[in-house]
């Protein structure tokens, strides 16, 4: 089931078209929104929040029309903006409780829930400190807490690991992974950092110039297809490569004893590999369908 359905959406800022006739279904779970600067990711998020009125087309978020029911949508979703933002002059718990009240929680519920969420975001001990005194990592976590306080079913995270050190980044990614798996919360992560997406998301949408250029599960996108395999040899072996070429294989790459090759068909791949190894006197330690990094997928999609 889709958490958001976007149909023929076009958004223009004056003469500039930010999103161009975009149609996509955003599935449940953790979804990564990828794209170079100016691809239209933030505009898409703002449209889904009801901040931007489309020139044509529309979007339905959690069953509500983004153009006409923006207020209702914002009550049921959480937003962690990219920029550093907080309400000044408040400590952590007051800030998060106020965010809960603004979302429609009664004040006593909001305060209790603020304590709970800050504990979850590992800010329990800093909750009575003024937010302005927080470190960058703590500010990111308090932004996450305010997005989470009213128990939204969908959260938008815009560059959630911006400015974090490796430890802080690890902790934030762990929080995102935890919240989006088995807790009934759907997450849309917009990020430039592909390893972050790879680590947290199940599905990826790649955008370029206001359009979706690639969409699918991370595993599917990384897969190169059944005819390309990675073979691990004990030692680099030129005779093995020669034997495989004789069997119609194309050598894609070789790094040390690791060989990537493409076969003409997928019939008895294992048998052919072992026959070639036997013929060349090489030792095969393992083989598997080849996969590529998300960065390769991204670069291929946007170039």
């Amino acid at each position, binding site marked *: 089931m889709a958490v958001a359905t976007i149909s023929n959406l076009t958004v*223009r*800022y*004056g*003469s*500039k078209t*930010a999103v161009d006739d975009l149609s996509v279904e955003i599935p449940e779970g953790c979804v990564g929104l990828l794209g170079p600067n100016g691809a239209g990711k933030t505009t898409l998020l*703002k449209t889904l*929040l009801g*901040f*931007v009125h489309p020139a044509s087309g529309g979007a339905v978020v959690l069953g509500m029309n983004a153009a006409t029911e923006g*207020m*209702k949508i*914002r*009550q*049921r979703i*959480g*937003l962690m*903006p990219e*920029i*550093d*933002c*907080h*309400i*000044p*002059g*408040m400590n952590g718990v007051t800030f998060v409780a*106020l*965010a809960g*009240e*603004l*979302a*429609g*929680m*009664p004040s006593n*519920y909001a305060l209790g*829930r603020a304590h*709970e969420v800050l*504990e*979850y975001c*590992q800010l329990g001990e800093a909750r009575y400190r003024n937010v*302005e005194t927080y470190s960058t990592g703590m500010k990111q976590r308090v932004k996450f807490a*305010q*997005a*989470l*306080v*009213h*128990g939204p079913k969908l959260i938008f995270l815009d560059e959630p690991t911006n400015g974090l050190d490796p430890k802080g980044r690890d902790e934030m990614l762990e929080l995102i992974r*935890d*919240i989006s798996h088995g*807790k*009934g*919360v759907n997450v849309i992560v917009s990020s430039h950092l592909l390893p972050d997406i790879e680590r947290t998301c199940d599905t990826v949408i790649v955008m370029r110039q206001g359009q979706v250029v690639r969409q699918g599960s991370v595993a599917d996108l990384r897969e190169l297809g059944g005819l390309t395999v990675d073979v691990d040899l004990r030692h680099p072996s030129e005779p093995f490569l020669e034997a495989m070429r004789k069997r119609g294989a194309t050598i894609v790459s070789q790094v040390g004893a690791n060989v990537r090759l493409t076969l003409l068909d997928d019939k008895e791949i294992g048998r052919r590999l072992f026959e070639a190894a036997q013929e060349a006197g090489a030792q095969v330690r393992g083989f598997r369908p080849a996969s590529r990094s998300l960065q390769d997928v991204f670069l291929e999609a946007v170039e």
Partner: protein
Amino acid sequence: MNYDLPPPPASVGVSNVADLQYRNYEGPLISRTMRWWIIAKSGMQNTMKKPAFWVCVAFCLLPYLIHFAIYYFTQGLTQQAAAAGVGAAGVLGAGDPERYGQLVYTCLCSDTNLLSIFIIALLIGTGSIAADNRANALMVYLSKPITKGDYLLGKWMGIFLTLWIVALLPCLLLFLLLMVVYTTDGFLRENPTLILRILAASVVPALIHTSLLIGLSAWSKSPRLVGSIYAGIYFVGAILARILGNSLYGNDPDMNNTVQHFSVSGVIEGMIQYILHITLSPALLQKRDDTTLAMPIVAPLAIAAVVLIIGGIVAARTKINAVEVIRG
């Protein structure tokens, strides 16, 4: 000897207090009609935490205490003198129908009170939107079910209600004291509308300060800069208006008086004088001769007040945006 500590009880690791698991929120989510009230309430709560605010409130009360004491004792002496057949007019004039209104004006428009209200306005108004701009707080507010209008109204009401309460409460206390002490002298019969006039007069400084500060604050990221600019407008404007009045209408007291009111503080004083409907007596002007000061011409002052209020709100409304719009 064994120095090892005994192992912790098995229950320590699974204590409910240390349960950091995420739990979904199952409580209610209300669609409020007065969404601005959350922002206003939060602003007022923040104000209450500032010690400087309470110091200014204490200064606001001072003129009321002093003037009431003076009025009470001199009125007592006047009554005794009248009973002895000596005859005296008292500080505000015995039998003067305006005397209670004049007393309220003296307190509300005393330098101490106006300055204290001005300082409180600076204290809570300068950072109201400017500090939010600096901290990008608008992004947090508007990602919730809050409109730009709710945000602006909440910020405006947070300052306005605080200033109004600070201006109104001492006036009400003074009114109650006068009522308790002078009801037998026909206080309520002589002044049936005084309470309404007090309510309206105390609104004026709150309205003008709030709107102007909100307007200035929305255009800046620095509360200090906003405070400096507003203090400049407030004080320099008053001096310029006085110079202008004297130089342009030196021979026309009415016009001179009116032009001298064309500043933020002047408009506040003039409108309060009009609402309380009083002529400033020699005692109020601290003059030894019989000089009185009539009300300034009200129409231009009222227009100036409306322009200041609406101008401030429109300036703020123009600047508050939910999203940064890229213009191609």
